[in-house]
């Protein structure tokens, strides 16, 4: 900030803080959408590592490449496939393709929809996402992350139109048909409206990479390839662009480094190593297993969620990838053919004898560079992640609870810190509109706490804050603040990962209430003074 701009510095800072808070909330949202589905990614990765044609234990039935007319196992789903001689045969569908095409995007859509609008949102999100999945041949991860939450949000708005206006007794009927009709409509809309866009984006990315390869901007290709990979366009880019171009170079030079741009397992290894050492909670404990599947098994997809939940890490992937490409360019090394899957074994198997040094160095250096950058990024946000429990995990939540213990009155300021606001400052944005009390049964303690807080807010003249109470099991994500008994805060945090959480010991005379009122007051003042 220059001296001339000193006067408007204060509002700018506030805007900066607000943007920071927004980015953090967005990050928490991505995490909540991906994290619960990590086991599905791992399961898919394991099945793929073992059973595809180039896997450890190839299996035509599970891997989806076997001929059902020849093999003995009957009754499994098959599809007609064109053989080399022009005839058709029944090929097993297998687990690998359907899982990555349908299961994973739908799980992500469901998690995203659930965050926005509960179980109902999750259902509508999955219905709508089916439209983008089937409307394209590209894996629809970005489609699911967009369409899922959007569809749930639309459903929420639609429900809002007639909320409370339906004749008693007809609510269930209306709920059922409104979600069914809206889901069907959004599914069709996504099929024709969104799927072609994602398909085009993927083609366009391919064209850009093509152009870069022709113009010798090789290391820059990682700027496109790495983000495209993480959005599960790796096969589209790898097989669609790089492999054909590489094959052309092989006929001229006997080898090509283009085969290693996408297939280099180094960048993913670096990021997963960084998570293993510096990650938080569930992400940290999942990372070592993911390394085996990614680096040895060559299924790169298992590291994508780790980047999706912390998008800044894409920088680590890009620079690491570029390092690998540059190393191969310097050493004049490359592969004889595509390394698929991108396992270290497949890479070494495709390396011509003169290229071992360059290829191995490109993997090692890209892993080292990715690791260093990822480590810096994870290190920088580690304390915040721990405090915010953004990993959605128990350990972090307990650490937070422990931090609050014994100084209940400071719990809110700790919270404010977790949101990127220092205690002395006014909260950015009027972000305290919905408060939910959560208890075990939803009939006693939480109701009492809610009445006391409502009374205090009313006496303070704050009318635009809603205070609800719910059983923890019924808690939905989305409230600005969730107040629960100490013993239940972990469960509450699990149910509502994007909300702020506070624990109380004493529902009747907790200092937390007065702090909430003060926070709501200042939020109200900030919102009121904003243009």
């Amino acid at each position, binding site marked *: 900030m220059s001296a001339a701009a000193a006067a408007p510095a204060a509002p700018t800072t506030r805007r900066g803080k607000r943007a920071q808070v927004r980015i953090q909330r967005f990050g928490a949202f991505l995490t909540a959408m991906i994290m619960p589905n990590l086991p599905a990614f791992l399961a898919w990765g394991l099945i793929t590592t073992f059973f595809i044609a180039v896997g450890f234990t190839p299996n035509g039935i599970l891997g989806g490449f076997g001929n059902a007319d020849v093999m003995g196992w009957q009754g499994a789903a098959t599809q007609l496939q064109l053989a080399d001689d022009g005839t058709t045969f029944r090929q097993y569908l297998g687990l690998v393709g359907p899982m990555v095409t349908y299961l994973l995007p739908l799980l992500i859509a469901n998690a995203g929809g659930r965050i926005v609008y509960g179980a109902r949102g999750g259902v509508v999100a999955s219905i709508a996402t089916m439209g983008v999945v089937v409307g394209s041949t590209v894996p629809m991860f970005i489609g699911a992350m967009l369409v899922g939450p959007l569809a749930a949000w639309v459903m929420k708005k639609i429900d809002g139109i007639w909320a409370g206006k339906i004749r008693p007794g007809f609510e269930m009927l209306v709920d059922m048909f409104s979600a069914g009709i809206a889901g069907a409509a959004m599914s069709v809309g996504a099929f024709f409206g969104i799927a072609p866009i994602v398909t085009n984006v993927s083609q366009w990315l391919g064209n850009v990479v093509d152009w870069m390869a022709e113009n010798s901007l090789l290391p820059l290709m990682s700027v496109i390839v790495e983000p495209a990979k993480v959005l599960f366009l790796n096969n589209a880019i790898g097989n669609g662009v790089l492999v054909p171009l590489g094959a052309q170079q092989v006929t001229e030079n006997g080898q090509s480094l283009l085969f290693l741009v996408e297939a280099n397992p180094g960048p993913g290894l670096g990021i997963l190593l960084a998570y293993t050492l510096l990650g938080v909670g569930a992400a940290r404990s999942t990372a070592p297993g993911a390394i085996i599947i990614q680096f040895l098994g060559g299924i790169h997809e298992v590291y994508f969620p780790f980047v999706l939940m912390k998008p800044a890490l894409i920088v680590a992937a890009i620079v690491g990838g570029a390092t690998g490409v540059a190393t191969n360019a310097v050493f004049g090394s490359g592969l004889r053919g595509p390394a698929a899957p991108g396992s270290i074994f497949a890479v070494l198997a495709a390396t011509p004898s003169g290229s071992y040094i360059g290829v191995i160095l490109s993997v090692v250096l890209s892993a080292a560079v990715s690791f260093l950058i990822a480590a810096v990024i994870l290190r920088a946000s580690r304390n915040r992640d721990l405090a915010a429990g953004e990993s959605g995990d128990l350990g972090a939540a307990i650490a937070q609870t422990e931090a609050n213990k014994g100084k209940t009155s400071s719990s809110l300021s700790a919270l404010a810190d977790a949101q990127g606001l220092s205690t002395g400052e006014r909260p950015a944005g009027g972000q305290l509109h919905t408060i939910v009390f959560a208890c*075990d049964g939803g*009939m*006693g*303690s939480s*109701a009492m*706490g809610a009445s006391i807080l409502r009374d205090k807010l009313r006496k303070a003249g704050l009318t635009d804050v809603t205070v609800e109470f719910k059983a923890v099991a019924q808690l939905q994500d989305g409230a600005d603040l969730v107040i629960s008994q100490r013993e239940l805060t972990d469960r509450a945090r699990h149910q509502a990962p994007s909300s702020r959480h506070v624990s109380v*010991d004493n529902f009747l*005379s907790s200092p937390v209430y007065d702090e909430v009122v003060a926070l709501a007051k200042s939020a109200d003042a900030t919102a009121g003074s904003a243009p």
Partner: protein
Amino acid sequence: MTDVLTRDLVVVPGTARTKDAAIREAGALLVDVGAVTPAYVDAMAERERLVSTYMGSQLAIPHGTDEAKSQILRSALCVIRYDEPIEWGPGQPVRVVVGIAGIGEEHLSILSRIALIFADPAQVDRVLEVPGAAELYGLIEQVNAA
């Protein structure tokens, strides 16, 4: 006031000496007026083992679990005041026990009155000082619900 908390559901003084007995005493009152089945009383005791219903300000509000809601025949509350504090947990003396059987929202207005009384130390003193059940019932009745 509705029939969620009737005069016969306010008892001064209670006879229980322990936390378990107090929960049984409150549960028995609710069973006697036909608000809950005896199975609900077991659920109250079970819920207490999961998470204490000690609220602070010498108040505890035993109630059943979410799953036990099917054992509630109608919403009802009972209020029992004890002459000697009952040890609800370490350093948690309880003089007033409010047993809750709540389905729907009928019991909430009374519950919020009780909450407001116990959030105010001066009011708590009055609750502990009034001589008998009739006066205690009157005191709860007077409070304006939030």
